[in-house]
């Protein structure tokens, strides 16, 4: 490094300038090449999936990679519909009910809990917040056995509420909402509402919630997607086919019946991925800016 710099400084200024320019062009080219390769890597599986979902199984068997879509989309859809276990509509419906429930409950109650911590002084506040920080990282795996056995004994397996209700205590989201409140809310607004005679609960619903809208929007997207993609808990809790969520439906595509029906498998995969891809492309601005705010990862 040091020798390089010395050489640079001994050269005539223009030469140094020019070499810096070519240097920068080479550097830029490398960046673009790597980024394009990574983009292709990200997109290839999905493009392959979408194109193959429109091709017949026979043509996939003959040549698995193609750049031109086939004409067998409807045929694949029909075959998929004939399958007894895989039912995309049921999956979509169940996933939607659960994800919507989780989103509404987690966003509303996280705001409420965060407000309780931010706006009021109470004795156990610090302990309570410590608890929230402590359970923030806890994955569902560790509570699963106890939870499943309890649900089983109370005949509550196959009950969607068992996946929705826990969302009231979403510690990560409370943490995030509290951070947001600290920056966005001045207590003067609350004081003036009190002087106007508004009850505390009303103040929260009509004044605090609108202030938190931007944070709620980002968190709602992540809560919805997170719940939509959840595979582990529904897999354990749900036995009846009519309760299967989308990820469980997808997992059925791995069965032996589908071994020969490649077009059909690709179709099923596309049916589950396409809604997410569309939603993601529409909301990508909010999602990408929301990621940095923290979430547990794999």
């Amino acid at each position, binding site marked *: 490094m040091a020798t*390089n710099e010395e050489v640079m400084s001994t050269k005539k200024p223009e030469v140094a300038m020019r070499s810096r320019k070519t240097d920068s062009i080479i550097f830029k080219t490398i*960046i673009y090449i790597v980024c394009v390769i*990574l*983009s292709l*890597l*990200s*997109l290839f*599986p999905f493009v*392959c999936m979408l194109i193959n979902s429109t091709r017949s199984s026979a043509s996939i068997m003959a*040549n*698995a*990679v193609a750049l031109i879509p086939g004409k067998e989309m409807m045929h694949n859809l029909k075959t998929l519909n004939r399958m007894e276990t895989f039912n995309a509509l049921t999956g979509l419906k169940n996933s939607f009910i659960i994800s919507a429930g989780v989103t509404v409950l987690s966003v509303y109650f996280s705001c409420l*809990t965060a407000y*309780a911590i931010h*706006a*009021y002084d*109470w004795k*156990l*506040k610090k302990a*309570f917040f410590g608890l929230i920080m*402590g*359970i923030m*990282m806890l*994955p569902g*795996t*560790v*509570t*699963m*056995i*106890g*939870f499943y*056995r*309890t649900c089983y004994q109370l005949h509550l397996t196959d009950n969607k509420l068992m996946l929705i209700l826990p969302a*009231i*205590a979403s510690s990560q989201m409370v943490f995030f909402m509290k951070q947001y409140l600290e920056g966005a809310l001045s207590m003067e607004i609350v004081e003036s509402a009190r*002087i106007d005679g508004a009850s*505390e609960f009303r103040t*929260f619903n009509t004044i605090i919630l609108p202030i938190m809208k931007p944070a709620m929007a980002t968190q709602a997207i992540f809560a919805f997607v997170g719940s*939509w*993609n959840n*595979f*582990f808990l529904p897999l*354990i809790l749900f036995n009846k086919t009519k309760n299967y969520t*989308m*990820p469980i439906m*997808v*997992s059925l*595509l*791995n069965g032996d019946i589908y071994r020969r029906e*490649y077009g059909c*498998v690709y179709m099923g*995969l596309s049916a*589950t*991925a396409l809604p997410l891809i569309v939603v993601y492309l529409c909301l990508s601005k909010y999602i*990408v800016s929301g*990621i940095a705010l*923290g979430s*547990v*990862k*794999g």
Partner: protein
Amino acid sequence: MEKKKLVNYSKFGYLFAIPFFLTFLVFTLYPICYTLLLGFTNQEGAIPPKLKILKDPLDNFKYLFKKRSSGSMSFFLESLITTARIWIVNFIPQICLALLLSAWFTDNRVKVKGQGFFKVVFYLPNIITAATIAILFNTLFAYPKGPINDLLTSMKILKQPFNFVLSKTATRAIVEFIQCWQWYGSTMITLIAAVIGINPEIFEAAEIDGANRWRKFWNITLPSVRPIMLFTLVTSLIGGLSMFDIPQLFATGGPDRATTTIAIYIYNTAMKKPYKYNRAAAASILLFFIIIFFSALLFYFMRDKDAAKLRKLKKQELKNAKLAGKGA
């Protein structure tokens, strides 16, 4: 008016926190305690017998570490090692790639065009259901006729199609690749936010001093984003410890248990014959303590050092004042 200001509002704090707390009690604390209890009991089989603490309460825990009759390591330890292995091999390239990209995307000399597009595309795999991704890769790596086999044979990299899911190394490598591929975009975006947060004057000063790109990265960017990297490391580690969807659906934990993670081990122990709930519970509890350990480590490193120091000083002062008071 005067009177109203004196109203004690603290009860609303309790009131608004009650829903969270009750839900936490029912859906988190109770299951954890029950899981802990089950770990010491005789609960197993499709219809478990009456709940009873075992004669040797630690029996289930001991079993987890007991060597198999063949003399090789117990299934639990094996799954622990598999999990760690998959996580490490996925995390190192993931963080390196994310660091590299975040340095490139925040370089103020070379303004990379199309950044928005690249970010959206790199993050795309993360938003898609892991179950879908696992089955999709399973189909892409199909044998003998699958897209990957087709590509590799037509490019003459492979002479004949290769059955990936029968090879332990290949299956593990693919699972590691999927994890890395799914998460580097997310890590990158987190790191970019951290780099943007660095005071630009520091970079400007370094440039005036003639620091090159590498020096700036090594001496400014890297030390500044260390806390965020640590955060990423621990959250990723905890996420990695509960890895389930990809290895389970890509190769059902196989071949020959090569991708059986702890979560899969717990699932198989509890949900498949002979339904050893007690052993699965014991394994969950051990996993719980491992996670608590790493979370505590994170909080220890992430704690506000200045605030902690200040608190210590204040305590010291109080003590001194007390001592002085006693002395007088």
